[in-house]
């Protein structure tokens, strides 16, 4: 009897010792979550994503929190400047003592804190960037991506283009930064040994006034395929200019600029007809989603929590998807410690998020740190994006 008690006591102590996992930022009644977002500076359009999270967790708190704990969501401005992201991340981890960070935004900004977060063993969850480097748990076990990666999307376009066009001649317009080059490099990889089919590859800077001259040069090059890696303002310019000069290639538009409201309308819906993009989100300006449960849920959230929010801005939908994913992870998590939450984040199975395309499911595992990896091609018919083909799952 006494031996059994001793055994039980020893086991309990050992278990307690093993479970001496890191509960920084977590109490029985609250959890502190950190975030950095560009509320000022050149990327401040993406600040609405952080705003969406803040509104979402305020709503969750009013409804009793998650597993009885209130969410203390601390979102700091880094102005899209990597040194400031470093400073704010250190503030979150060392001063605010957050449990983990969530959807920190931007590729150069997240790059700057990538090693720090892993060195400090703080979960760096669902980073808001499509760069390909976030899904490497062998080296960086505390960092997890979120959206389909740019380079995989580029590959999808390359394979599609080679499939569709006889005698392909390819032109690529790309933003001269990590995002643009990631897409470009993925596309080139998708071409395999046919890289010499690229007849024109031109960059632009976000500080340039227009991309018109690049479009003219591309038409002159005789290209019949156009891979358009631009952010919305420049995408609209590119579409309009090609229309003006009568250049009608197979137009592959990166998903980042696929919003009807933000890009195609300003470009001209007629000019945009026939453009192809890969989708993973439900475009909030596309009427085909208005009657779906997912859209209604999001629209109701926007109306109640962010009434002045622009319903045609897909960034609000993006933020909502991120928040819902985190909510799901926390709600289904037993072990509320840093290690435990990381483990739960790496254990999502077949989750359909409301504003993600039907059939594109979130899946993670200890070896798969890319939550969303599927996309579906769609073609613009003058009014809306019409999905075609199969959901292409890039998780092979």
């Amino acid at each position: 009897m006494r031996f059994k008690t001793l055994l039980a006591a020893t086991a309990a102590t050992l278990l307690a010792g093993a479970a001496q996992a890191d509960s920084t930022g977590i109490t029985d009644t609250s959890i502190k979550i950190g975030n950095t977002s560009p509320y000022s500076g050149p990327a401040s359009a993406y600040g609405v994503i952080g705003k969406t999270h803040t509104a979402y967790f305020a709503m969750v708190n009013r409804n009793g929190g998650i597993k009885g704990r209130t969410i203390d969501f601390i979102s700091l401005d880094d102005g899209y400047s990597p040194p400031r992201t470093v400073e704010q991340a250190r503030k979150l981890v060392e001063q605010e003592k957050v449990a983990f960070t969530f959807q920190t935004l931007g590729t150069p900004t997240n790059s700057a804190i990538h090693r720090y977060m892993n060195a400090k063993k703080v979960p760096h969850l669902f980073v808001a960037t499509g760069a390909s480097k976030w899904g490497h748990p062998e080296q960086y076990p505390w960092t997890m991506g979120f959206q389909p990666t740019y380079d995989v999307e580029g590959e999808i376009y390359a394979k599609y283009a080679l499939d569709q066009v006889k005698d392909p001649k390819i032109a690529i317009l790309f933003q001269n930064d990590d995002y643009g080059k990631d897409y470009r490099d993925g596309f080139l990889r998708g071409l395999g040994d046919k890289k010499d089919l690229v007849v024109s590859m031109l960059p632009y800077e976000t500080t340039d006034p227009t991309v018109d001259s690049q479009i003219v040069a591309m038409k002159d090059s005789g290209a019949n395929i156009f891979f358009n890696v631009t952010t919305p303002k420049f995408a609209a310019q590119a579409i309009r200019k090609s229309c003006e000069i009568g250049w009608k290639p197979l137009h592959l538009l990166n998903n980042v600029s696929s919003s009807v409201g933000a890009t195609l309308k300003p470009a001209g819906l007629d000019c945009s007809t026939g453009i192809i993009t890969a989708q993973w989100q439900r475009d909030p300006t596309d009427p085909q989603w208005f009657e779906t449960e997912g859209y209604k849920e999001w629209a109701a959230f926007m109306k109640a929590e962010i009434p002045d929010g622009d319903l045609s801005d897909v960034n609000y939908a993006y933020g909502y998807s991120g928040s819902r994913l985190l909510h799901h992870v926390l709600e289904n998590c037993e072990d509320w410690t840093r290690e435990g939450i990381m483990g739960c984040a790496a254990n999502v199975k077949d989750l359909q998020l409301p504003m993600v395309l039907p059939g594109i499911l979130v899946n993670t595992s200890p070896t798969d740190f890319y939550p969303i990896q599927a996309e579906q091609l769609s073609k613009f018919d003058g009014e809306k994006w019409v999905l075609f083909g199969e959901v292409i799952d890039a998780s092979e």
Partner: protein
Amino acid sequence: MSRPNPITPGLVIGLLAAVAFGAAIPHLVTDFTTYQFTLAMIYGIALLGLNILTGYNGQFSVGHSAFYAVGAYTAAILLYHFEWNHYATIPAAALVTFFFGFLFGLPALRLEGLYLALATFALAVATPQLLKFDLFEHWTGGVQGLFVLKPDPLIEGLSQDQSLYYVTLGIMLFLMIVAWTILRSRSGRAIMAIRDNPIAASTMGVNTALYKTTTFGISAMYTGVAGALSVFVTEFVSPDAFNFFLAVNLLVGSVVGGIVSIPGVIFGGLFLVFIPNYAQDISRLYPWVPPPWAIFGIFLILVVYFAPYGVWGGVERIRAWTQRRAKG
């Protein structure tokens, strides 16, 4: 008639007290706050460069972010590609930025005031693009930037942040003494004469061209050293960190601290690091408060309006007032 000895007992005591206080800080606060103070000192060194050029020599620069970037990338490239010792990269960065500063100072000779400002502005705007340029990508890492590691602590028992703080403190004090010595010498008087009345200065035999370009070089060198130190602290360089906004911030910091001063740069650095943070904290706590950058702007307007010579200008005015009171 001999000039009064500037090294008064008061100055020495004040200096020692300040240094002692500075040395104590890492033991009084967390590593994170130590790191913030280190950043403030790094800005201080950068601002010292700007003060020498604009405050003391009258050459307007809205482009010092370019020299900061050159210093940072010199250090980063030497660390990343050539695995130099951290501290050896500092004189290297100093030499390289001096060279570029001097080189830029040559065409700048033909420009005054607004036009010089525009030329430096062009430099600031071009810098991120040049850093991303494909031709240099192999060295600069292009848009992906370069990663380096913090140096190991110089003294056993100190954390990396604490060690870096002391290194920065030492370098800052050294550079301040150098600047003070230069500005108190004949060369310093020549530099200031060029600011106050260039025609009179050259009539008196001052080689304005040589002084102006050399001052540009020295100014760039100071800011370049700051850039190099910033790489140790942040462990990462990327082109978009060195944009025009940084150049504006440096000018703001100079004005707030006192553009014609040496000790003022400390206040300028503290302002640049801590005010945006406080503004953000206050904004989060009290929703009725205007957004953080508006607070920053309001604070700046107050400083410019009530203390155009910055914090140090205010200090000197108080000192002059007390001296007048003492004399009766």
